[in-house]
């Protein structure tokens, strides 16, 4: 049996993170000591590694909950998990596009700032950001 500190250390997280996962219903101690300390078994350690790995793949805690439920369900099969993974990949591809667009916009701003010695109030990057914000607010007013 592992204490919360040992379990957390093995997974590279803090005890607070373990408590948070418990609050979200993703993890539970196998039992508690008479003094009320949580004790975890190897199954909980495996579950915690699963949660961390899934988070690194971009899954939210709600989605991880869904995956864990599928994992336990007799009615579910690999196809169901695959479906969740395909949806996640689609979301990631959308995010990548958005990040690429942001990166492109930053490249344009960096390109117009060709004189790093200018004073701050002449900084074309800050001016462009301000103008785009003013444009957005104008658009919101007219829209």
């Amino acid at each position, binding site marked *: 049996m592992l204490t919360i500190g040992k379990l957390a250390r093995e997974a590279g997280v803090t005890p607070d993170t373990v408590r948070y996962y418990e609050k979200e219903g993703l993890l539970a101690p196998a039992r508690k000591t008479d003094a009320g300390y949580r004790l975890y078994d190897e199954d909980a350690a495996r579950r915690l590694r699963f949660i961390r790995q899934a988070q690194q793949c971009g899954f939210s805690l709600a989605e991880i909950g869904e995956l864990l439920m599928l994992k336990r369900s007799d009615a579910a099969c690999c*196809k169901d998990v*695959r*479906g969740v993974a*395909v*949806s996640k990949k*689609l*979301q990631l*591809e*959308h995010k990548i596009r958005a990040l690429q667009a942001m990166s492109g916009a930053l490249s344009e701003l960096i390109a117009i700032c060709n004189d790093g010695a200018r004073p701050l109030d002449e900084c074309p990057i800050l001016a462009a950001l301000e103008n785009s914000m003013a444009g957005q607010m104008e658009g919101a007013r007219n829209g």
Partner: protein
Amino acid sequence: MVKVEVFSSPGCGKCAQAKAMLKTVAEALGSDKVTWREVNILEEMDYAVDLGIMSSPAIAIDGELVFTSLPSAYKLRVELLRRL
């Protein structure tokens, strides 16, 4: 000519049956009026992202995302008739 594209991932059992039923609806309107294409979302991920598809299965009509899940036969028929 209305172009229907059904995006799903291969091996999706529950999709297969529903897709077959929807295909019948589309084909009943005439192959000269409606084209039906089944798209493997994993092979055409870029295209799916272009169309704004966030989950599978989904249906695009004339290059526009119309159904974010498989619709009923009735809903598909109404949508296709509207476009013909």
